[in-house]
């Protein structure tokens, strides 16, 4: 145990988590809080009140230089050059063969592109981007920035109780942001980058803050009665209910966007241009020509199925695999994500899973399992 611990990096909030009684576990090379009072209670708190997550292990990157968006488009299928200032897009980092190297959020801050990538993949992402991007585009790894997520139906009301002001007079306050919008703010002379986004399916914000001030911000937020700290355990069960894939589990370098059920990340313009890494392989599957597809599963009975369990056919042969699975605290039943043959991917199709020698009946379900509760901009 001690060997493992010595190699783990500490997050700026590490001692703060321990002070709140968190159970710490290794995750993405860091020591991180998996739970405080318990996964179930934290999950339900986030769905009904507001939860504060420390996601400082994630990579925060900045791309500057003329044509940064065009350059990033060469290795992503998102329409990033059309991204207006203050807007965020979800996209995929693609290998030259179209395999998924990571999923990420890209914000046009008006001065540069701000990227948030997964913690476990950030160093590989940086190396790949530095290799692929032209010399005039500069990539900065914002290693001195922490990242908090405030998620839940009361997140906006809670955040409004801190005196957070827009960086420039006349700009919106955080509560005025819509889903997938972002802006620069100040709180007690501390600069904050706030995005209306998250990984729970709830309304909420992700807040980039200088690491030296993150204890002050996390403390101010958790002092609000509607905010409690939430660990990685509930983060996983929340994103599973929201149908959101987890990199390294539900997608990876051996998988292409269409089979990973991420068609929405292939923008129409970019499909027509067909000029991103691996476009030929990726687009050959579009929209539904892949052999398999990631789907949601409702599991019969009470026993959860887990990552690694096999999808089997009537003869017992393996025809797919479960990539995420757990118990849904909201629905009070087990749910999962799995890759199944395309002909079995329709909602309502019966699927059989084999886990530890036992057959478990499942049904293909629409995702999200629990409806998203985003603060979307009204359609005109």
């Amino acid at each position, binding site marked *: 145990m001690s060997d493992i611990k010595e190699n783990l990096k500490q997050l700026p909030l590490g001692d703060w988590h321990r002070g709140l009684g968190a159970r710490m576990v290794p995750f993405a090379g860091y020591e991180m809080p998996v739970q405080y009072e318990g996964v179930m209670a934290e999950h339900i708190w986030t769905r009904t009140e507001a939860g504060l997550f420390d996601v400082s292990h994630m990579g925060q990157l900045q791309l500057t230089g003329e044509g940064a968006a065009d350059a990033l488009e060469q290795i992503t299928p998102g329409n990033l050059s059309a991204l207006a200032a203050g807007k965020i897009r979800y996209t995929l980092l693609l290998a030259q063969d179209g395999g998924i190297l990571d999923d990420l959020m890209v914000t046009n801050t008006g001065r540069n592109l701000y990227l948030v990538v997964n913690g476990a993949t950030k160093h590989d992402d940086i190396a790949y981007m530095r290799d692929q991007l032209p010399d005039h585009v500069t990539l900065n790894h914002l290693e001195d920035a922490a990242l908090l997520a405030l998620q839940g139906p009361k997140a906006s009301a809670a955040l409004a109780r801190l005196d957070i002001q827009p960086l420039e007079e006349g700009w919106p306050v955080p509560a005025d942001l819509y889903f997938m919008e972002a802006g620069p703010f100040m709180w007690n002379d501390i600069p904050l980058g706030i995005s209306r986004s998250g990984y729970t399916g709830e309304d909420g914000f992700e807040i980039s803050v200088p690491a030296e001030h993150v204890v002050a911000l996390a403390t101010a937020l958790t002092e609000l009665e509607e905010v409690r700290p939430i660990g990685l355990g509930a983060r996983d069960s929340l994103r599973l209910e929201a149908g959101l894939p987890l990199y390294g589990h539900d997608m990876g370098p051996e998988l292409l966007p269409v089979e990973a059920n991420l068609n929405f990340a292939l923008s129409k313009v970019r499909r027509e241009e067909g000029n991103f890494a691996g476009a030929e392989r990726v687009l050959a599957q579009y929209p539904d020509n892949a052999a398999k597809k990631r789907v949601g599963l409702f599991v019969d009975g009470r026993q959860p199925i887990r990552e690694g369990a096999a999808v089997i056919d009537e003869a017992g042969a393996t025809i797919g695999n479960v990539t995420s699975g*757990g118990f849904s*605290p909201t629905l009070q039943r087990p749910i999962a994500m799995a890759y199944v043959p395309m002909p079995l991917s329709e909602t309502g199709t019966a699927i059989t899973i084999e886990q530890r020698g036992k057959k478990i009946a499942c049904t293909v379900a629409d995702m999200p399992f629990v409806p998203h509760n985003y603060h979307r901009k009204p359609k005109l």
Partner: protein
Amino acid sequence: MSRYYTEEHEWVDVEGDTATVGITDYAQEQLGDIVFVEVPDVGTELDQGDDAAVVESVKAASDVYAAVSGEVIEVNEALEDEPGLVNSSAEEDGWFFRITLSDKDELDDLMDEKAYKAFIDNL
């Protein structure tokens, strides 16, 4: 009746030639919210160290090993509808199964309460 403990955090209540087995309060605390318990079928012959049961929390599945060898003669049916009994009453109402003792010498390998307490204090 004497109670024994294993390093895998099971407790074993021995009464004559049979024993009742469950997981310790320390174990349930570590596992968190338990949502399902898979107990062995009555009649299953277990050797010490075999996989005997599975405890599922929201996040993960954990194996429970047979602390002693023998035949499963009764399982706790209440866990099917109320797996949370393992959280609320790990060392009483949340018992897993009863087993015959085919080799009482195996009990010599187990810890008593004092030794188990010292064991978890060092974890």
